[in-house]
């Protein structure tokens, strides 16, 4: 097989269905089993198109380029990640993220990362001895203008000549050539060193989940309205390249062997995992204080809760209550993130906003499986008495929401079952595997085709354009989930008392706000779930579905906000710690806070 010549071209021959290509002397492709000559000739791709930076390297002679193309050019793993990040950033830009995001934020973060992990911008790169960057003036890279160094360091591998006079390059060049032994097991130069146990323990090296973590940090820095839950949803829906992102590499960057272990993606990281990853990455990068989230930014709880109220089809009037709670809990002033302060965790704005809404619901409707239904009866009575009345009826909302939720969950299940994970260009870990992997790919493709023909419907579920919302409420053609309840009023569940509005439900309950040891305790949700009112659990489930997190995560966040909220309102009347008889008595550390609140 002259794989180097055919460049891994692996389409099926139109005549005989085999994949066994050879290249004739004129450079044309022919099938070696039926001698069918096809249109394709050996491709010569412009090496310069894959640069991020602006500077071009134009001194590549034709002869050397040809040889390089045959074997793929030399590249480094971090270069691959750079491509992936670039594509992810471009996808985000296409979604309407501000244009400075890519160059001024993500690119800076990436450079900082390269420097911190000693892969570039340093006098002694991490792969010293095996690989050293050739800088223009030897050892000047730190003082050189950043952009040129950046592109230079990325491009240095391709700049090295493949025609034998490696030493004539002046500085030290890569110790590995693509026709050396090491190239057998990986396409990139340093994949082997990437996978050594020491490097893995070090945790400074890039990985696929970390690209998303980096994007998340950059989005937060840029104060963009894409939360972590949104980012994950977009990745899941395929709007941001992640699964098989290596397919977009330029053709002469061959990915195989050990690279497969680095770039192959078989699952999308969970919210919790990514959150943790982002936090460690921020500490690793020693990022300074993040720009504060002010009221004009969509990440601010005030605006984010409004968004989730719309998503959950709750009346807009509820937002006033959410804002009041926010005020009481002291969350109005900017919440921001300072990685280098140990007591400043990376905030998750989305879960926090959901928690605020849940607390507002609890305040108004109590959610103890009794009061909310009594209030719903009142509201329906009121609506009957007064036909123009537009009172929010929790029961009606619950029914609408439940139907939509069931349908959405089924849609999600269906999408999971029909998601395609495998790439067009499959990865193989060793040369020995290659024919097997290619054959399997071909088999799967053909089977897909035949069943597709039989069912007459497209393979992947139809992808909708990226949207911040899962549900569509309202009246009109575009609606699939039911009528909108946003304009409804809360007049049946609040009443005027003195100058201010008060909820007609006089009591508030919360689970025991026990002090947890953050290191040793995991989520207590599983233990207490059975003792909680069903409506409350349902609400937790609803938001956990919307955000793609576990219900326990929302529960913990609610508790956290409740703690702040209740601490700040110590003098208030009628807040009960334990609402029901079912409250577990065995919880030892539970502080039965019978605090009085004045609202």
């Amino acid at each position, binding site marked *: 097989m002259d794989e180097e010549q055919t460049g891994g071209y692996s389409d099926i021959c139109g005549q005989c269905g085999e994949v066994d290509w050879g290249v004739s002397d004129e450079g044309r492709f022919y099938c070696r089993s039926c001698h069918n000559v096809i249109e394709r000739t050996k491709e010569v791709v412009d090496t310069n198109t894959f640069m991020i930076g602006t500077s071009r390297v134009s001194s590549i002679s034709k002869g050397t380029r040809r040889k390089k193309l045959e074997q793929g050019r030399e590249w480094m793993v971090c270069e691959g990640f750079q491509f992936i990040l670039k594509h992810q950033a471009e996808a985000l830009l296409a979604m309407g993220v501000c244009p400075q995001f890519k160059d001024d934020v993500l690119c800076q973060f990436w450079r900082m990362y390269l420097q911190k992990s000693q892969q570039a911008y340093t006098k002694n790169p991490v792969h010293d001895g095996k690989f050293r960057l050739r800088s223009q003036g030897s050892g000047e890279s730190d003082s050189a203008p950043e952009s040129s160094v950046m592109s230079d360091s990325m491009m240095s591998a391709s700049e090295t000549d493949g025609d034998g006079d490696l030493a004539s390059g002046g500085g030290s060049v890569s110790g590995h050539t693509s026709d050396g032994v090491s190239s057998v097991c990986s396409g990139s130069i340093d994949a082997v060193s990437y996978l050594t146990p020491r490097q893995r323990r070090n945790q400074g090296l890039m990985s696929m989940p970390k690209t998303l973590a980096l994007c998340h940090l950059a989005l937060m820095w840029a104060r963009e309205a894409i939360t972590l839950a949104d980012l994950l949803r977009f990745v899941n829906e395929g709007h941001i390249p992640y699964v098989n992102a290596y397919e977009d590499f330029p053709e002469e960057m061959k990915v195989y062997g050990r690279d497969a272990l680095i770039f*192959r993606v*078989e*699952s*999308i990281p969970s919210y919790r995992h990514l959150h943790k990853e982002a936090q460690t990455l921020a500490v690793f990068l020693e990022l300074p204080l993040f720009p504060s989230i002010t009221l004009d930014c969509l990440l601010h709880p005030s605006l984010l809760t409004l968004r989730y109220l719309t998503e959950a089809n709750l009346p807009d009037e509820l937002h006033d209550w959410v804002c009041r709670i926010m005020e009481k809990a002291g969350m109005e002033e900017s919440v921001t993130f300072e990685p280098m302060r140990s007591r400043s965790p990376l905030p998750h704005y989305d879960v926090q906003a959901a928690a605020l809404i849940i607390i507002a619901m609890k305040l108004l409707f109590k959610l103890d499986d009794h009061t909310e239904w009594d209030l719903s009866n009142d509201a329906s009575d009121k609506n009957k008495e007064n036909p123009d009345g537009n009172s929010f009826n929790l029961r009606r909302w619950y029914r609408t929401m439940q139907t939509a939720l069931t349908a959405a969950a089924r849609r999600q*299940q*269906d999408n*999971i*079952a*029909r*998601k*395609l*994970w*495998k790439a067009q260009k*499959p990865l193989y*870990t060793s040369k020995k595997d290659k024919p097997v*992997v290619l*054959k*399997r*790919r071909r*088999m*799967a493709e*053909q*089977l*897909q085709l*035949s*069943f*597709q*023909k*039989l*069912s*007459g*419907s497209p*393979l*992947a579920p139809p992808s909708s354009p990226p949207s911040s919302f899962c549900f569509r409420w309202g009246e009109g053609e575009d609606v699939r989930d039911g009528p909108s309840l946003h304009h409804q009023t809360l007049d049946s569940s609040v009443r005027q008392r003195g100058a201010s509005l008060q909820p007609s439900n006089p009591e508030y309950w919360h689970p025991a706000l026990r002090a947890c040891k953050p290191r040793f305790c*995991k*989520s207590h*949700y*599983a*233990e207490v*779930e*059975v003792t909680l009112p069903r409506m409350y659990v349902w609400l937790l489930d609803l938001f956990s579905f919307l955000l793609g997190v576990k219900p*326990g995560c929302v529960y913990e966040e609610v508790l956290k906000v409740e703690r702040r909220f209740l601490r700040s309102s110590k003098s208030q009347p009628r807040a009960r710690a334990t609402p029901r008889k079912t409250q577990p008595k065995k919880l030892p550390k539970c502080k039965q806070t019978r605090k009085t609140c004045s609202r």
Partner: protein
Amino acid sequence: MDDLESELRVPGEEQVENESSDDDESIIRKRIKKPNLPLAPPIFKETPRETGFHKTTRNCLQHIREVLLHHRWQNAAEYMASYSQTLEDTTANMPQLYAEIIWRIGTEILHHHPDSKLEDYNSFYERVKHSGVKHYLKVCLEHSFHLLVNGQFEDAKRQLSIAESWRYGKQSAGQSQRIKLIQAYSGFLNYFIWCDKKATASSTDEYDAAVNQEMHSYFRQSSVNLKEIMKLPGVWDPFVLSYIDMLEFYNDHEGAVKVLNDYAYDNSFPPNPNAHVYLYQYMKKQNHPLKKLLKVLKILHTLVPSHELMPEYCSLLVQSEKEGDLQKALGVVLDLLDYSSWRSNLDVWNHLMNIIKRLRMKKQWLKIFGEEMGCRKDWWLAIHFSTFQARKDSVENRELLEVKSFVVGAFCPRYTSMYCGVGKEARKRLTSEAQKAKRNPKQLRNIRRLKRESGQKSQD
């Protein structure tokens, strides 16, 4: 009380395990706690460290099973399209299993999908064949079966010959057996061609040497393969029949009997009543002596006492002059009557009546009777001569009632009155009612009129 408590605790605890479970032990514990239903263990379980890809394939398989159960073939085909990516599972420890799942479910869908055509089958089988070496021969065989069902005789034969010439690596035991089976089937198809030729040859009436030659060559090809498979233990009924048919045509009767004898009496073969049936039928056709026939049928009787050849066996025994055969015949008939399908068969009861008539003339009648009825005496009369049975017989088959009355009279006179009385009574009632109706047509008319009037009244 304890059970209730443990049941109530389950959901919470399961979640705890979900959160923290990294070890397999907790999963096992969880499985044990589930209600003990006789379900097959799931092949693909949810594990704590499941990748997204595995989650997708697991869910997809579940969806496919669901839509298959609901006969939604269209949806099943849709899911199947995305399920084929399991073939590319890089961490698969059982790629053959995936290939097999796709093969089995895929054919099921093709069988039921309204739009599936033969081309779809062909292309599907071709692809599945190459997805895993282990299934190549099985799939080939199934493919040719499908072609045969659809009347594509030539294509089916070609599939078999492709499979015959296929070789891969070291031959495993299963593989060589499958190859033998495939050869046998190709021999079987050769027999069909032979039959065709025979039919054309006999229709033309002229002796054609060329046709005859051709027929003979097919016979040879076929017989080589068929003989080969018959050496292996197994149930080869169609193969045996076709081979015997050919041997008979070429007048090789001894060979045929030998083949049948081997097939019937080889102990390494699984017990197969048909083998004895074929042997008996062939011997009967060739006018073998009664003694030999009886010997074959005796074995068949021990294998299947309710076989449809048993009445014939019985009459043969009655015919034979040998001492003791009559008692044997009695035993055979009584055995037959133990099976519900024969219980109201007039022929069998007639046999029984004749045997009793002849036995009663002998001295040892009571002794023979005691021997045969010994194990049945508790229930035999009750099952055959109940009042319910009598009523049923009198309605369905009068002749049977009479034969049975005779039998019960011979066996147990005490019972006779009960059985016959009911029978007669029922008969009497029937006849009297019919006669009444016949005698008095006026009455009938009156009744009808009354009915009509009352109907009108209620309408008013």
